[in-house]
């Protein structure tokens, strides 16, 4: 009996609990499975729903939030890609816009150009400036040549607004291209006259971008500043009456004080020329 009590005392409290607990839980869960406890089980479930449902909601919220985060990150990445794409598109549109502007202004110029007609006895050929030598800004190459009827020493005219102005002279002519020497070049020369003084002289190009020079004026010249200078009928190359420029000043030669000359500002800006109207004398063609 004493031995039995001793053994009982030795049976630790923890170890008993260790054996009882699983048995209780196993039996309880087995009963839940086996017994026809539909209504008590429903009650237990209803009770448990108070505990578990908020957690499920929290889990759902977490998953949704996680999904939103990934979607946000994805959309941010997409935004970056879209931004790049839009930048490229913007760049393309900018180029297209510039091209459209260019085409529009060209269209406007050409519309005006259509109104330009060659003088009697002259044949006019429209040509575009195809190339401009970077080191030689006083000449341009046009996209028409001998095969189009252009010949050397033909006059090159451009439109300034709606007024035809002298641009230069064809100095070289190839099959499909021609080189035009602009009047700013110092090798250029043309017989001109000024209005209203009707003073005649020889216009030569200025060197290094300076003004044009109208030489061989009469000693008693009444040429005034602001007079318009036109090509003279005495020139065999240019048709008469084409605007060349405007007298800036009338000066005397330092060496020969009796010989006056005039500084003339060209009417056309050679750097802006896009189309040229080449005038070929019909006699020359024959």
């Amino acid at each position, binding site marked *: 009996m004493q031995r039995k009590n001793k053994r009982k005392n030795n049976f630790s409290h*923890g170890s008993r*609990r*260790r054996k009882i*607990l*699983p048995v209780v*839980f*196993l039996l*309880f*869960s*087995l*009963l*839940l*499975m*086996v017994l026809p*406890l539909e209504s008590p*089980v429903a009650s*237990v*479930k209803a009770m*448990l*729903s108070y505990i*578990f449902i908020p*957690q*499920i909601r*929290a*889990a*759902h919220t*977490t*998953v949704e939030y*996680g999904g939103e985060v990934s979607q946000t990150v994805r959309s941010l990445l997409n935004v970056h890609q879209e931004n790049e794409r839009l930048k490229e598109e913007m760049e393309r549109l900018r180029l297209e816009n510039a091209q459209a502007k260019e085409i529009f202004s060209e269209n406007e110029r050409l519309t005006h150009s259509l109104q330009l007609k060659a003088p009697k006895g002259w044949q006019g050929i429209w040509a575009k400036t195809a190339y401009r030598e970077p080191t030689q800004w006083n000449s341009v190459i046009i996209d028409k040549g001998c095969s189009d009827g252009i010949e050397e020493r033909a006059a090159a005219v451009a439109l300034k607004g709606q007024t035809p102005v002298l641009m230069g002279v064809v100095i070289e002519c190839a099959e499909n291209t021609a080189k035009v020497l602009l009047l700013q070049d110092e090798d250029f020369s043309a017989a001109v006259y000024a209005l209203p003084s009707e003073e005649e002289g020889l216009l030569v190009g200025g060197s290094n971008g300076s003004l044009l020079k109208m030489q061989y004026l009469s000693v008693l010249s009444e040429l005034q500043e602001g007079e318009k200078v036109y090509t003279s009928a005495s020139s065999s190359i240019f048709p008469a009456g084409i605007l060349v420029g405007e007298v800036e000043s009338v000066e005397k030669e330092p060496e020969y004080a009796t010989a006056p000359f005039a500084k003339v500002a060209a009417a056309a800006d050679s750097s802006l020329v896009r189309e040229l109207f080449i005038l070929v004398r019909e006699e020359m063609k024959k």
Partner: protein
Amino acid sequence: MTTVLKLFLSFLCATICHWALMTVFGEIGVTVNIMLIFSMVVCAYLKPEYGYPTAFLGGLFLDFFGVKLFGCHAFIFTLCACAVYGMEKRLDMDGIIPQIISIFFLSLAASLFNFLLLKVFTGFSAWGGFWPFIGGITLNAALAPFVFRVLRHVFAIERKMS
């Protein structure tokens, strides 16, 4: 008291994680069982007074959402808890490999036992195919070291082994 509070809070977190991961991995047809891992890790680290109720309640949580056999998971989880307490002296649960292996085999046993109980009591076959089955068990095993690490950190003072 602190342990009970920690256990309660970690249980809540486990249920949230379980549901969240179920939702995420459910999309690829794999069923992860965080509650089983959690219950087994608690059993591995805490005394039976904490381990058995946790396993039972963890199972009951799953049963709550089941429609076929109420108490099935509670029964299985309690049996798994018995297995963990039975082999606690033979396994070093601090190593990653034993953690993975033990959870792998416990998940395998729990799943097979679940199929068996459902078949016996309801005649219903819960077999969803080999790959979802093996995928779920493997995923449980892969997640086990992480759960072990987290709970070891949470219950560091209350560790049973120390």
